[in-house]
């Protein structure tokens, strides 16, 4: 369905995404058999398109508003005209083929992409009404308002306790009582407390992979973030550990606003309230998960969620 063989130098390819298995199977040079996919062809030509946003998504109270957001690595435009409101207290997933810019968008929210050389942006995002991309914004303070969970669990080589309270420590909090409370409540929220309560002084690297990832989630929520960013949190885990994390996501509904990137369509349909379909740095369709997976308005979205893409 992808027109031509011109996808290879994918503009949205980020270093993180290039590691995962490409979902798009296509024969180079094969012509578009149907010739009816004008939208994808238009995107490949770089023409502006408008996102199909369902009214249900617009009716929600947005915690994070992304408006006309563009992002470049050097001269390469990775994100184009992203417009979407992230609903408060809901789980929003980003789906799409590898290299479409899902992770990049996520990293733009907490401005981790600032660390990369030669990146620049245009447009605006605002978290609870406060702009994220003003020159006056303190990036450090900004990141403290968000939590992030990465694809590969990345605990620090410190004790379990110190890992969880790390965001509080760097905030300069020293009171033992507050740290203890934060540690216990975060670990309880990720259902890790009973497993590690006797091992709080042990090195976090001694935990199992699934426990490490839940520890990273505990760390991400320790400082009560306004939004939780999750970048394929289960892709490196076995099915049991994955199920535990999906259970957590279920519990988090209502109390946390979550922006989740996933490659796993079942996971997206199981856990999330809203789903956005991304392709080549653009959001094609954004709406309630049930609608996106059952009656999407775009044929391209339908092809992707049913696995007929390509």
């Amino acid at each position, binding site marked *: 369905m992808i027109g031509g063989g011109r996808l290879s130098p994918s503009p949205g390819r980020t270093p993180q995404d290039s590691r995962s298995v490409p979902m798009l199977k296509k024969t180079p040079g094969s012509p578009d058999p149907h010739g009816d996919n004008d939208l994808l062809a238009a995107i490949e030509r770089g023409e502006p398109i408008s996102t199909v946003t369902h009214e249900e998504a617009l009716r929600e109270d947005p915690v994070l508003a992304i408006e006309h957001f563009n992002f470049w690595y050097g001269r390469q435009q990775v994100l184009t005209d992203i417009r979407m409101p992230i609903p408060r207290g809901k789980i929003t997933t980003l789906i799409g083929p590898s290299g479409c810019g899902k992770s990049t968008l996520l990293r733009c929210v*907490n401005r*981790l992409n600032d*660390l990369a*050389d030669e990146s620049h942006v245009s447009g605006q995002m605002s978290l609870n009404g406060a702009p994220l991309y003003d020159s006056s914004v303190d990036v*450090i*303070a*900004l*990141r*403290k*308002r*968000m*939590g*992030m969970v*990465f694809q*590969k669990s*990345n*605990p*620090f*080589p*410190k004790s379990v306790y110190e890992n969880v309270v*790390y*965001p509080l*420590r*760097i*905030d300069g909090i020293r009171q033992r009582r507050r740290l203890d409370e934060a540690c216990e409540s975060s670990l309880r929220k990720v259902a890790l407390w009973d497993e590690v309560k006797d091992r709080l002084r042990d*090195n976090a*690297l*001694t935990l199992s992979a699934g426990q490490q990832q839940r520890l*990273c989630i505990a*760390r*991400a929520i320790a*400082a009560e973030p306004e939004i939780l*960013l999750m970048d394929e949190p289960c892709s490196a885990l076995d099915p049991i550990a994955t199920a535990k994390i999906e259970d957590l996501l279920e519990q988090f509904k209502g109390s946390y606003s979550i922006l989740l990137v996933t490659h796993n369509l079942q996971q997206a349909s199981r856990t999330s309230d809203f789903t956005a379909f991304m392709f080549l740095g653009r959001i094609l369709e954004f709406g309630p998960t049930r609608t996106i997976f059952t009656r999407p308005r775009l044929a391209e979205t339908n092809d992707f969620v049913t696995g007929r893409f390509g």
Partner: protein
Amino acid sequence: MTSHQETPTSAGDEERACVSRDAARVGILGMPAAEPMHWLTGGALAMVVLSVGGLLGLLLVHGLFAFWPKPIVRLSMTDGRAYLGEVLSWNASPTASARRDLIVASRSASDPETIGDMILRVSNRSPSPSSSDSGIVRLPRRAIASQTIDPWAVAIDLGGNVRLFGTPTAFYEQSTLIADEPARIWPLFETRHREVRQQRRDAQREKDNVLADVDRLLASKRRELAAARARSQASPQAVDDAEEALAYARSESDKELDRLRERLAQVEASTQRYRMIVKGTDGTTWNLALVDIVRGSAPNQAGFLSAVVTSCERWKEFLTTGAGDSVQQSGIYPAIVGTLAVTMIMTVLVVPVGVMAAFFLREYTRNPTLRFCLRITIRNLAGIPSIVFGVFGLLLFCDTIGPALDALWFADSLPWPTFGKGGLLWAGCTLALLTLPVVIVSTEDAVAVVPSSVRQASYACGASQWQTIQRVILPYALPGIATGTLLAIARAAAAVAPLMLVGAVTMTHGSEGNETFSQLQLDQEFMHLGLHVYNLAFETDDHWTTRPLLYATALVLLVIVISLNMVAIALRSRWRQRLAVREL
């Protein structure tokens, strides 16, 4: 065969086949046959092990036995002369001139046994340590008529490199003859000698204490007087009082000193009461007060155990005493202290600076060109010969910064320089410069392998760059920092040449050489074990007596460097353990 393998009965067959296959691979000496490269690489490793083991073993044996008592022999020469002394070498190769004579002579007598020389240390009475009377004699083996080992030959050290060899013949208390046979004299000598030496040491300590007390008292009175004079307008009476107090203190002190002098004279008289007569060769006799004898030994009497004890005592003395009259005479205590101090100063300076610089290079520099240039510069710095760093340190610290500091803070002691000369601090600084690249490079390498995911996790938690460095990257870099410190210490221990330029000296003259760490001053010149080894090796012409000291000093240097390295290695493995769990 394949069909057989499916059936259970052929299990034995298969096993046999395996055995024979294994047997085919057994090579020489029953060891498994291996590729040629296996042998080659193994051989290279064996050579490394041999050379390291050889170095350590040889140095250990020679160093540990440096103070082993040597036998005393009595030699009668064919020309009638007799010698009594310590054997330093039983068969040394003759000197060049003697060799020329031998070539002529060897036509007649060509017994290889008689070609060599015997090196003997005999009595030397002159206290000056110049080579002419060091007591070393070289005797051609051909000219030796007879050689006996006198069981009661003793060696008597009188201090100042004077050593007498002879046989004790009489022992007196006051003027009463107590013993007149060596077998009875020697045990008496050993107990009485210890006794009187202890008395003299006690007296010396008492004298030091009393003098210090008197000094302190008078100084305080003098200060009070000065203070009273300063306030003389307000209270003229106080000046008079203070003057009176000082005068009183003076008279009291004089009385105290008189009493001290009296006591010391008594002690001296009492320590002088034992005397021993020692008879040397050629009828020379020495009438020696026991208290003047530094050390007496009867090596020919010594069994293995007492030889060990003597050896240990000499080692202890070697390690704990300071400067003597010459390099050979002095102990190495100040050199040990100096080496440790300069290494410590270096470490304290180089580790923080090097680590910070490495963090800047890795974490803060965004400009790749700048980073590249800096890195090239630093790596080049590592290749500069250490003597050049010595010259640089001399120029920068001793000749530029030092005089400036002197002018600023120590102007009252000029023209005598305080920091405007070589000293402990400048030597530490020079070594720190010398080892800086090592620390930077190894820290940088350690920081380079910190997983970027961990770094991002820290940033995502809202940590600033410094917080990330301090809390996340530093723990990862610690093993690398330990490696850098280890290499720095090793490089610093190897660098003797620059130290000679910036403050290491052959001999420091502290109070009896008993410098301790608390007495160390940053501006003071110091001794260094490396330099001491150099001096023992090249700056003395008394080859035969310094060689054992050379081995012993080198051994001590080696032990210090290895122990410092062990500390670094232990720390490193502990820090590594914390990170290594991830690999499980």
